[in-house]
């Protein structure tokens, strides 16, 4: 098995790597240090390893690295950082859509791909777009809510260019946020 040189542009950084023919894009990315790309199953069933390959969401475990030669790849960490999170990442954090967080990078990538082509998706469209991303913690409800919130915030950003993204990003978590699907009753509360 000979090694071949391939070029990958990941999150704007260009890499030249020497890989064998059967190296998956997942392995190549993780070996390069992009460990936000998660390995959950290696057979394309869980979606934790999703990345944007030339703008399309793909499971990186199902692509050979050589097939991505010359391609632009964006991982979740390429969308935003702790200091400057992407509005989708921010929405996931605000909506309570993150529990263990292992599916989150793939979920964010699938959300980005969805909202790039459909800025105002219905619940059914959101569910369909995330159907290849497994989550074992949340039951998906708060994730759906996060996608809705992402779409809303991204639409606000594009409709009012005056409000910059960084201002949006620094807004503290709202205490008045309405629970995604729930209601809360305290003892003695009126229970109509």
């Amino acid at each position, binding site marked *: 098995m000979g090694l071949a040189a391939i070029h990958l542009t990941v999150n704007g950084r260009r890499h030249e790597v020497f890989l064998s023919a059967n190296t998956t894009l997942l392995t190549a990315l993780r070996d390069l240090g992009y460990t936000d790309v998660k390995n959950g199953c290696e057979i394309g069933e869980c979606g*934790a390893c999703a990345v944007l390959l030339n703008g399309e969401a793909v499971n990186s475990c199902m692509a050979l690295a050589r097939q991505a030669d010359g391609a632009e790849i964006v991982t979740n960490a390429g969308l935003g950082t702790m200091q400057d999170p992407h509005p989708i990442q921010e929405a996931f954090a605000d909506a*309570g859509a993150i529990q263990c967080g292992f599916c989150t990078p793939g979920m964010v990538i699938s959300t980005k791909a969805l909202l790039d082509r459909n800025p105002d998706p219905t619940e059914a469209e959101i569910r369909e777009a995330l159907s290849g991303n497994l989550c074992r913690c949340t*039951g998906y409800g708060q994730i759906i809510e996060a996608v809705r919130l992402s779409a809303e915030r991204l639409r606000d950003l594009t409709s009012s260019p005056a409000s910059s993204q960084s201002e949006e990003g620094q807004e503290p978590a709202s205490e008045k946020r309405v629970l995604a699907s729930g209601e809360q*009753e305290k*003892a*003695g509360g009126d*229970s109509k």
Partner: protein
Amino acid sequence: MSKVTPKPLPKADLPELKQVGKPLRRVDALGKAVGATVYAADFTMPNMLHAKVLRSSRPHARIAKLDVSMARELPGVACVMTGEDVKGAKLNTDLPGQTGREARAGSDAPVLALDVVRYVGEPMALVAAETVEIAEQAIRLIEIEYEDLPGVFTPEDALKSGAPILFEPDNVVSRYAIRKGDLEAGMAEADVIVERTFKMPFVEHAYLEPDGGVAWVDEQGVINIRVCTQVIEHFRSIARALGVPQNRVRIRGTMVGGGFGSKEDITVEIFLAFLTRDTGRPVKLVYTREEQFAATAKRHPFTITHKTGVKKDGRITASHVTMTADSGAYPYLTPYVLLYATGMAAGPYKVDNIHVDSVAAPTNQSFTSAFRGFGGPQAALGYEQQMDEIAKALDLDPLEVRRANYMQTGDTTCTGQAVTSAIWTEECATRVLHALGERTPDTPTVKIGRGFANTFQSYGRITWFHDTSRAWVGVEQDGTVVLRCGVPDIGAGQSNSICQIAAEILGVPLERVTIYATDSAVTPLAGTSTATRQLYMSGNAVTMASTAVRTRLVGRAARELGVSEGEIDLSDSRAFVTSDPSRFVELKDLVHLCAAEGIELSHLAQFNAPFTDGLDPETGQGDIWPDFTFGAVAVEVAVDTETGQIELLRCAACHDVGRAINPAAVEGQIAGGTHQGLGYALMEEFVLEDGQIKTPSLAEYLIPTSVDFPSTKVIILESGTGVGPFGAKGIGEPALTPAAPAVANAVADALGLRIESLPYTPKKVLETIERSKQASRQDAEHAKKKQDT
């Protein structure tokens, strides 16, 4: 079930708080959102080796040959170990975490099989090599010869005489007997006796993050293990297996990508410890998904029979419950899972005359251990399906039958333990039923059904384990707060909850609190993230530590402001006079005032759970748990009688969580737990045939996706009566328990028939319908013959 009105809630005093009770963004959320959180499999070390495990392909066999010489000679292989090399080391699988209890059930599995393998997937040898590929190649070079032994594949068979003995002397892994009241008299008093049997399958945890870790030996000779685990206190069991002092093993837990009980067992860490000690080099081991299915614990299959005596109005006069559980090839936590199921066998109902007889036996199949609920969900599938069967037998509304039997505060469980907190069974049930709204109409081929379940579930560990948790809280010079606590965060918000509590008590915003967690050597040990215990245990420890620091701050502020201590409150990073908030001192200035007088601004606290002695060996009577959480789920399903497909149309879940420390996190627990329960009922079954795994991947073992079920409507109740901080009860495990029996009852309502075993696959639905048609045809023929004669 006709229209249901929510039962009004009793009065309770819940003070409005600043940090607690708010759906704040969790402290761990942003790091996870942007991919900055580093998980166990993401770590690498200089000069690191990669490990792989050789696993048994036979369910029961003598190892006639295990020749590793070719593997050892492969270039790039640093180490190959077999059962001989680990000198018969055992896993202390049955008592994880810190506990004052020394006596163990003795249910040890070997670290590596020696002479005999007992299940497909049992570890037989380890390889550490320069690359993953070389390690895999070396595994393939190991020569094995098996001599197959007769296997046993059901616990019932294991208990027959002549069965292969997997657990000395008689295959009884554990057995319990509860004797409360007078069973015979109770049965004699009954108008009707209802007897039904219910069965549950093996279930896989299927968390997204495979088990993994990296270990190395540090400059002091201490074995360090970085691993995703629910139990950092496993360092003690690992030290025992290695034969080294307990202070020579250190576990540094990572953020856990889901655990649900399976990361309560020792997984990769024991292999890593042996390999790094042997090679002197860092070693990494991460399981593949296929290995997850073969090598880690499953939920226990149970068969549960309820024989219940009832009056015509639904009151239960006597109950006899029998349970048989499959422990798989090794006991692991089976003795305690069975105890949980046994102690919760009667459900949240007052049953004065009850016997419970339960037994667990081994099979040559995947071992079973903890899984969210720990036997509670299986018990609930017994008692809640039985409640509906009783309603059907008496032609009563299912809610009516439950109303006739609900426990009240002060009533006792089947082990005689009095429940001291609020019991909001009917409050929960009426709310979920109300939430379903108008009933969807049937079509000629699609039958609509509705069902609900009322369950209870303990939180906190078994009280004779002498459970404790510790936390350290300190205020920095700039008024920020540091929390040190050995709590493993398995994704449910364990870290965040205790940060919100510290923020509340010390009067700072949540973002001013930083937590350092999950290191067995440098963070105060907080016990396991299991048994729905962390909010209760570590929440109370953090409350104690924060309150101690607060008291000192308040004392100094009172002197500074010239008022009594009772007039001072802390909020928004300042201490102020409650009657005149314009008189205040900033927290950072208060810290300097304290420092100048040598007033200690940190505190280490230990919270002890109530300690009890255990159950009476004759009657099984006594206290088992600190407290219980009560909840309910209702669902509406559509059953297609032609295809056997079941569609979940609506789902509502309601739990009394005492006090929601973070309502968004509580909603996540309830929605997520419910979803797992729905999967349990409708989709999930880990299938073994003659001990061979038939569902080895996520392509065969299906878990719910985003398109399988609608979102659950979550209703959070707060009685304020729990034994956790601010009156909180635990919700992690209780969230799952009612969902599966609610589905079972809805499907029975739709079909007018009950399917005996979970999950309700289309095939099983059609078979059940067909069997019932045959039965009614036979009945009709019978009746006709009778008429003719």
